[in-house]
Every structure is written in C-alpha cells, then in structure tokens.
C-alpha cells in the first residue's frame, strides 16, 4: 500500500508504548497494531485526530506516501 504509517517512529520519540496510546485513544491494541503494521484499509478522521492530539503531532508526521 502506498500510504505507510510512521507510528513506531513517533512512539519511540515520545517514549510511549503502543498499549498506552491505544488506551488513551480509545481503540483496541489489535487495531492500533494493525495500523502500525499497515494492515488497515482506512482510518477515520476522529481516530486520526485523537492520535495527533495525544502524540502532539500533525497527520503528516504519522502518514507518508511512498510510490510503489
């Protein structure tokens, strides 16, 4: 998929665990893990907003377009 997530990089910078982020965002660890590994097909704006708020970043910091 051309859209990849840099969630692992952001979590490492903030020294935060994936489970901690999942709790604060309010989604399951499995779903967040799928997002991290690029297995999801779509993300709601509300979820993206919650992640950006907690990680104090922009959507562009988490999502990146890489041509195949």
């Amino acid at each position: 998929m051309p859209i990849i997530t840099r969630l692992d990089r952001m979590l490492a910078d903030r020294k935060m665990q994936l489970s901690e982020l999942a709790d604060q965002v309010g989604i399951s660890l499995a779903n967040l893990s799928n997002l991290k590994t690029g297995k999801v097909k779509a993300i709601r704006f509300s979820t993206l907003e919650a992640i950006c708020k907690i990680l104090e970043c922009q959507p562009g910091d988490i999502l990146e377009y890489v041509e195949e």
Partner: protein
Amino acid sequence: MEKQIEYRKFAKVLYILASITYWVSLIGLGFMGLLMIGSLFIQESIIVLLLNSIDPAQLHFDQGTFRFSIDWSLVVPKELLVFLRVGLFNVLIQMGVYFFIALEFRNLMRHLMTELPFTEITVKYLKYLGIGIIISSFLVLLSSSSFTYLFMDSETVKQILGAGVTDMGTNITLFDKTSMLAGLVVLLLSRIFSYGVELQEEVDQTI
C-alpha cells in the same frame, strides 16, 4: 446493536422451525429408503396374491385431470411391480431434495444465530439453498403420473387404466415457476451478500 439482537432472535425462531422440518424430512427419507429397498425384494407372487384379494368393484380412481377404473384381472403383476418401484423412487428423489433444502436452511439459521451475517459461510449456504430450490422446481415433472408410465409398456398402461379413461397426463409441466423464481431470488441474495462480505471487510479494517 439492537438490530443485531433482533435478527438473531428471528434466526433462532426460524432455526427451531427448520430443525423440525429437517428431522421430519430425515425420518421420511429414511423410511422411503427402507421401502425402496424392501420393494426390490418383493416377488411377483406377492403382487398376484394382493391382486387376487382385491374386490374390483370397489376400485375407481379419481386423480387430478383424469378418472379411470381398473380391471385388475388384466393387470400384469410384473408391470405393477415396476410401477410401484418407480413410484417409490420418485418419492425418494423428491424427499432427498427437500431434505437437502431443509439441511441448508437449518445450517444457515444456525450460523446467523451466532455470527455476523456478511460472511463467506452465509454466501455458501445461500448458494446451496438457491440451487436446491431450483432443482426442487423440476420435481413437478417427477410427480406427474405420466413420468411413471414412461417406464412401462403401453399395452400394460392401457390394461391398468382400463375403460373410462378421459385423459392420461397430457399436461406435462417441466418446472414449477414459483419455485424456480424463489430459487433465482435466493441465488441473487447470495451475490448481494457476497458484496456485503466485501463491505464488512472494509469496515472491519477501518479504525
């Protein structure tokens, strides 16, 4: 969530009805199977005995579009045995198809009781159910008396039917239109549910 609980309750009720139909058709199928096997062992001599014990004056038949009386003294026992066996085989085939429909319907309801509706398994059960209903629409051809008579010598048929025949199965129906339509609609539903599976997958992979 409420709608999910609602359809599951309905599926449970249908499952109970489907289970009753399933068991009744299974027992019926078993019974017909035994009768069929039993008929293979019936000897002509038994038929002769039966024919000798019948009082011809009491036997007149009124079947659908035709009415006839039989002079039993002219009936050939061997041909009557063929008539019996073919008749039993007809019923066995029909019951087999109805059992298959009851089985698939029961499986579908059992699945819907506990799982989400838009899954590959639902699509599979709907497909088999549709095919079963379409096949059952052709059973009307087997039900026709003239189908049985096809297996017998025409002279014997004339003897069995005797005098007073007004008609002999000239209205052969190839298939039942209502059942055919129902089967096609169920097949269409399976295609629609297949699309539903795609949508469900997309929803499941959206966070």
